[in-house]
């Protein structure tokens, strides 16, 4: 038996408003190692062209709910990186 190749999961990443403007896109499919966290997703997005304009610790949501950056991601998650909220 050989060691199993590290499992990966696919997630959907969404950007909005000023963040979407900086990076030039609003959504992205991303493959990640299993057991990655939201912070790891943010790190990958910040490594893209224009991504260093995002804060290291932005506001994030997973599947329509605010989550902390240590939140684990799983296959199929919708991960949103949110600029400062300005409703109302």
């Amino acid at each position, binding site marked *: 038996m050989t060691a199993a190749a590290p499992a990966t999961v696919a997630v959907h990443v969404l950007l*909005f408003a*000023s963040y979407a403007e900086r990076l030039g896109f609003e959504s992205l499919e991303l493959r990640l190692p299993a057991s990655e966290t939201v912070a790891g997703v943010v790190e990958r997005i910040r490594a893209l062209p224009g991504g260093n304009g995002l804060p290291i610790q932005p506001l994030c*949501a997973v599947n329509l709910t605010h989550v902390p950056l240590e939140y684990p991601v799983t296959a199929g998650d919708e991960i*949103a990186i949110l600029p400062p*909220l*300005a*409703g*109302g």
Partner: protein
Amino acid sequence: MPVLTSTRIDVTALLGSVQSPARGGIASFVGVVRDHHGGRAVARLAYSAYAPMVEAECARIIFEAQRRWPVAVALRHRIGCLEVGDVAIVVAVGAAHRDAAFEACRFVVDEVKLRAPIWKQESYVDGGVGWVEPAAVEPRIPAESAR
């Protein structure tokens, strides 16, 4: 009814929707587009949103309000292009007593501003545009979040 709407908000209809023969007090908040922000004259603005999350988060906010107070709540937020003077948000709360109506109304307004993923881009009279970024406050993340 969804929270988000791209057409004019009917304030009178929302006030009426939370009234009943047993609910004698209606507290409300109407937020209107102002003509100045940060010292610059605003011509118009555009609200955008992460719509499915706004609906989910606002449903949670109303649920939380109704666990604390015996109230009926109506909430609308407009998106798209607004002019100075247009109504951007309406929160109407009906209750048997005014204490509950006022407190729940204040709670819902505060929580929407803190938690609903909505963004505002202002167009200034002098020609520029800018994203409004309030001093970034961390929204409270519920302990039992997401799943």
